[in-house]
């Protein structure tokens, strides 16, 4: 079920939502934190895209690209048992090794986008703990969570940076979220981080900036 390539694709035709651009306070905050610095290492977990690579490398940073949702589908399959399999320790270990096998303190920032909401609770916490380890103290992590408590399925998007405050969302399909995240759940998730800040968008997404 999960994976950029295996999400139920958005159907082509008039009902298919077009790419939309929107402001992102979270992104603005993220880039404010690294403004006037160069040579940083930034982790982008939503797959490599031309716009993200161009934008971040033009700021003088090194970008590490990976597609964590693709690794999710190779680790846990794509059928209805997908969330259940995330509880299997061997598979979870394989997933973490494939997706976040970096040295401690390797990155100065992480763009996690909406990927965490597709992880079931045990694996989710392991993943956030691993992200905490690979980030340097003071580094920022940007992640998005659906704020619609009643949503049965949520859209899966590619996030492309247009500028430091604007994102383009390219629909890739839709899927069932692993759980609903309210502010308290998100605070608990990032409890090891020094601070957590929320922004609610008009598209009903919680943008979260966590400072390591």
């Amino acid at each position, binding site marked *: 079920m999960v994976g950029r390539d295996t999400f139920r694709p958005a159907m082509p035709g008039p009902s298919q939502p077009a790419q939309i651009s929107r402001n992102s306070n979270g992104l603005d905050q993220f880039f404010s934190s690294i403004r006037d610095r160069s040579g940083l*290492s930034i982790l982008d977990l939503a797959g490599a*895209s031309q716009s993200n*690579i161009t934008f971040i490398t033009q700021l003088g940073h*090194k970008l*590490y*690209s990976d597609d964590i949702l693709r690794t999710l589908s190779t680790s846990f399959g794509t059928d209805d048992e997908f969330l259940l399999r995330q509880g299997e320790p061997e598979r979870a270990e394989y997933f973490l090794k494939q997706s976040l096998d970096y040295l401690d303190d390797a990155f100065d920032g992480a763009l996690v986008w909406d990927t965490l909401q597709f992880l079931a609770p045990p694996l989710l916490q392991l993943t956030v703990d691993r992200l905490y380890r690979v980030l340097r103290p003071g580094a920022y992590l940007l992640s998005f969570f659906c704020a619609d408590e009643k949503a049965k399925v949520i859209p899966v998007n590619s996030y492309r940076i247009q500028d430091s405050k604007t994102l383009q969302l390219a629909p890739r399909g839709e899927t069932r979220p692993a759980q609903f995240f309210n502010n308290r759940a998100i605070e608990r998730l990032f409890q090891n981080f020094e601070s957590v800040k929320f922004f609610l968008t008009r598209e009903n997404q919680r943008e979260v900036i966590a400072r390591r």
Partner: protein
Amino acid sequence: MSASPMRNPEPDGRGAAVIGKSVMIKGQIISREDLTIDGEVEGTVELQEHRLTIGPHGKVRADIKAREIIVLGNVYGNVDVADKIEIRKDAKLVGDIKTARIVIEDGAYFKGTTDIIRPEPKPAAAAPKPAAVQTAPVTAAAAVTGNATSVEAKR
């Protein structure tokens, strides 16, 4: 309009050397001309001043140095490109990239670091050319070496 009996050249071929899709090479490839790899290569690939194309059937497990690289197949290894790398739709590259420019199409898979190398500014005045030097004709266009075999392709 003429019905030429000659086959159309490959779009990117420009007379480049080609490692076909049924060819597998283990070892070191050094090429002094453009090269297309549509087979399997394991080792290292070096084309300092030339363009490397990894064809759609190409599977390369090697560190690569080239002036320009176009990836349509699979590459596992670090890539050092003086000018530009293009990762086309459905291509896969796992490894770190050092390059001056990068083009990545939607649908391509890339896992690794992108490190953009800014070209050093050229000196204002070009150095005078030295007097003509008599050189022997260059015959070695591409060299392929491995553990068991050593092949030198000559034109």
